[in-house]
């Protein structure tokens, strides 16, 4: 499997790698469109799951195995289950439908377009840089180095994010309790 996944840059494996790339990219893109178009909330969650799996496949193609597995564990395995769980707990009708108002659609489309423009602006110079100096994908992914970076050089931001998450969790628990009274 790695023979075709890892050597994405070599010309002989190019066909298989690009076939897999288009497979995953189409899957992620189509499912993302599905998330926006579908009205049923649980179906949206399933579409989102296919998007996440497609993106995880793209990470695998790039040789970022750890990122791919984290994507699956945290988003597909954790966040999505919580979304579906929340829907099951809160909805009254059997199949919750999501009917946005016209104003909401306009605002969402505007924000989406602005973000898309910003990302294109940010990516295109980086893209040119990579084209001249491509990253050789498929090298052994430095898991150990990632761990050392997280607990070494970047330990302060890492811990700050953990504290932030803790604060968010306590806040959510407090709000949920306050609403009950």
């Amino acid at each position, binding site marked *: *499997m*790695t*023979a*075709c996944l*890892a*050597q994405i840059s070599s010309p*002989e*494996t190019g*066909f*298989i790698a690009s076939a897999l790339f288009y497979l995953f990219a189409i899957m992620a893109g189509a499912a993302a469109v599905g998330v926006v178009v579908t009205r*049923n909330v*649980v*179906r949206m969650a*399933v579409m989102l*799951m296919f998007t996440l*799996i497609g993106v995880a496949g793209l990470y695998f193609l790039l040789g970022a*195995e*750890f990122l*791919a*597995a*984290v*994507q*699956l*564990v945290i988003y*597909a*395995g*954790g966040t*999505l*289950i*919580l979304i*579906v*769980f929340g829907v*099951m*707990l809160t909805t009254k009708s*059997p*199949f919750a439908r999501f009917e946005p108002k016209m104003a909401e659609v306009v605002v969402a489309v505007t924000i989406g377009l602005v973000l898309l423009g910003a990302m294109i602006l940010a990516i295109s110079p980086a893209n040119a840089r990579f084209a001249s100096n491509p990253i050789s994908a*498929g*090298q*052994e*992914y430095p*898991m150990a180095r990632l761990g050392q970076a997280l607990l070494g050089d970047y330990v302060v931001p890492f811990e700050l994010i953990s504290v932030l998450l803790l604060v968010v969790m306590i806040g959510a628990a407090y709000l949920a309790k306050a609403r009950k009274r």
Partner: protein
Amino acid sequence: MPLATLISDVGAPSFMERVIFGHSPLPWQAALYDCVLVAAVFLPAVSLIAMFGIWWERKVAGHIQSRIGPNRVGPFGLLQSVADGLKLLLKEDLRPRDADPVLFRLAPYLAFTPAFAAFLVLPFAPDFTFEPRLNVGVFWVLAVLSVEVMGVILAGWASNNKWSVYGAMREACQMVSYEIPLGIAILVGVMAAGTLNMVKLGVLQSGGLHTWLIFRNPFTLLAFFVYFVASLASNKRAPFDLPESESELVAGFHTEYSGLRFSFFFFAEYAAMFVIGGIQTSLFLGGWNDPLGLIGYLHPRLAQAWAAHPSMTSGLWLFVLNCAAVGMFVLKCLSIVFVQMWLRWTLPRPRIDQVLYACIKVLLPLSCVLLLGAALWQLLVPEMALQPWAQYRPWNPGDWSAHGRLAAFVVQCVLAMVGAGAFMAVIGWVAYAWMTGRKIKQRLTDPAPIADGVPLAAVGA
């Protein structure tokens, strides 16, 4: 033997690829070979494991409840699962009118595919691992198994049935909470090993019983049990089978399923049981290695001989050794699966609040303590910390005393002896129970007792 030479480099052909294609296959050949391997070896193997597992579960249940279990179709009832499978194929594929048509159909596949994908990294043998170079092997299995839950939840939700939704909600609660102790218990083992790659894990533990990670330090020993309990819960096996508790929820999340779609859930469950046993085996119980370390001793030598002179004989020997390793791995996995079945038919089912209490107030703090303890252990009783990983030779006591690491070595040996003793005790216990059971069964099949020369039935008693 440096570890780096034991695992081929990225893109290098595996043993079987070299046997089949010559030295290095073309990319399309490698891709085709992988596809054929998945379709012709893994899919039938997973189905066989699931079918055999179902038969075995019924046999174990029969023995535990003093029954015989399936014994009509084929020898020992072995073909019962095949007959049941055929029956399920012919059943009508029902869908409730108010169920979500798309999700209802999709859910069984979502449950089965991840369990199947997890098989691709299980290290059956040093050269018989589908993807030996995946550096996040253990994590990958965790990831795909967490996707499997989505299938179960969707099945419950899409059925539009109150029992199913209850089952799905319980599954969601259970999975989300038990994933944490499960992950931390795996982390304790991974910390002791220093790698997530499943083949490297196997090579690391190739020096005999005392090098198995379960005996590496007291914390991994406890983590083994924490992992086992948490994995039972995350795979909804009894006593944590609340998502389908048949005494209250009919059949829980798969109440509305029939025919082949129903059987997919069963296949997923039994495949996941094996996968969970596979992680436990490769992370704690030495993977494909036998307790004496013979496979670990022979494999590097045979592999080197074959690499130097790729002849028929050396290749055959390497192949035989790998087959033995597969046998060892499957034996260990099946023993763990057996314990899972044994627990299912002996323990009563707790309530959902008790299940969550056990996770959040017992297992979670325990696993956090284990994580801290394992970290402190690495700090205070370092085992070969000065040695680069590639030159780790756990089976050579001289190395340990030379580096002043005798304490860690002694601890490992003592733990291994305790573990071996406990294992023998369990085996003895099972053997004793089996003998007693045979005696009781014999007494039951004896001819009816006769009172005063007249059969009791004739008296009308």
